[in-house]
């Protein structure tokens, strides 16, 4: 099913960037790191399509482009439909002998708003139809491009501009939607979660998603210092802490079979290494109100939600 692609940091560093410097992402933008790394996983001719969002805007301010591959953006809610059209065209044009490439890979990129919320219909439809493409969700947990509004991917307790922490309401009251599980439920061949600190795991999973026949979904955790009110230098550190606290565990589901990826598996085997969520929360201004006496209890609630989800995942992975 997958090639045995092994690589060193040097080899990755030597591969030319396909997501180029000169993009206008904020300093410390983890989604930019995520795209750079994912584009290192490309195996050959590739077309990329992007939903409206931060990464689209920062990379295509006319007349500049940060894409060294053919790339298209059309709208917000339709990245998966873009991919459907491209993949269908490639398939038939190949059949009719109108394109010479043996195979062209298709990657769709979208943020959490473009995936959890407005794009879920197009995504669900595209994977049901079985188009052969990799869908990458770079999840910075709010509508950052429009100014940090809450999305279905925003976690419980986070303060955003449309779920502000007030004197009565402590930020977002709803849980983060389990989007990757929803994609597994579509019975597609490959679903995985990844985090840029674990760069090797991320690149490997992106490559697997590209290689697999049929739809693949890669959910990548992508800290946003602007929206999370965190130190730009700590974006990658936060992507590590999210895994170490089990807020964002790393796993794959190959043909629906869940398995933990090494960074999370280590925690399953040695639970004492699992860090308390407070270590992750305290680095972010969006959770600042949870460290005031009034709302302090909510960090326990977040710990409880996290533990519950982690246990459920362990059961799916047959690790309980």
């Amino acid at each position, binding site marked *: 099913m997958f090639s045995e692609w092994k690589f060193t*940091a*040097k080899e*990755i*560093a*030597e591969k030319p*960037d396909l*997501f*180029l*410097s*000169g*993009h*206008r*992402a*904020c*300093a*410390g*933008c*983890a*989604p*930019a*790191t995520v795209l*750079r*790394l994912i584009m290192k996983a490309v195996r050959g001719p590739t077309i990329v399509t992007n939903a409206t969002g931060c990464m689209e805007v920062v*990379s*295509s301010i*006319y*007349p*500049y*482009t*940060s*894409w*060294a591959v053919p790339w298209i953006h059309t709208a917000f809610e339709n990245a998966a439909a873009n991919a459907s059209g491209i993949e269908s065209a490639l398939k038939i044009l190949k059949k009719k002998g109108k394109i010479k490439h043996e195979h062209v890979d298709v990657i769709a990129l979208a943020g959490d708003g473009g995936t959890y919320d407005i794009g879920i219909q197009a995504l669900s439809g595209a994977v049901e139809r079985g188009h052969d493409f990799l869908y990458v969700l770079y999840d910075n947990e709010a509508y950052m491009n429009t100014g940090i509004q809450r999305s279905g991917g925003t976690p419980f307790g986070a303060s955003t501009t449309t779920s502000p922490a007030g004197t009565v309401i402590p930020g977002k009251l709803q849980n983060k939607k389990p989007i990757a599980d929803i994609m597994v439920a579509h019975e597609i061949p490959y679903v995985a979660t990844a985090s*840029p*600190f674990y*760069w090797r795991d991320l690149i490997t999973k992106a490559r697997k998603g590209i290689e697999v026949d049929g739809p693949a979904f890669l959910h990548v955790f992508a800290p946003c*210092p602007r929206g999370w009110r965190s*130190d*730009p*230098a*700590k*974006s*990658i*550190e936060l992507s590590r802490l999210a895994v170490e606290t089990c807020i964002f565990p790393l796993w794959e589901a190959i043909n629906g079979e869940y398995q933990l990826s090494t960074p999370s598996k280590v925690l399953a085997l040695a639970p004492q290494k699992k860090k308390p969520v407070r270590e992750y929360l305290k680095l972010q201004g969006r959770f600042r109100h949870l460290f005031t006496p009034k709302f302090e209890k909510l960090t326990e609630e977040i710990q409880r939600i996290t533990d519950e989800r982690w246990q459920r995942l362990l059961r799916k992975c047959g690790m309980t």
Partner: protein
Amino acid sequence: MTSQEKNWKEISPAGVCWKSSIQFLTGDWKTYTPVRDLEKCTRCLLCVLFCPDGAIHWKPEKGDIEFDLNFCKGCGICANECPVNAIEMRLE
């Protein structure tokens, strides 16, 4: 609008982009500049991989890395992630 910007008859249709962003320098955004301790640096290349701006290049011919300050936005991820604390962010 500058005189270099083309008129509607000259530009390609539909906003097909025609300049690579490597011609758009973002280095002047930064407040802090990374300074590397060459003795400490192990050339592990983690900074190359993690840099959101592709501003740190691995130069195989030199066996060393190079910062491209034309693009570095001074975020400090390289310094934060360096396993041997070889990078320091200094106020420009």
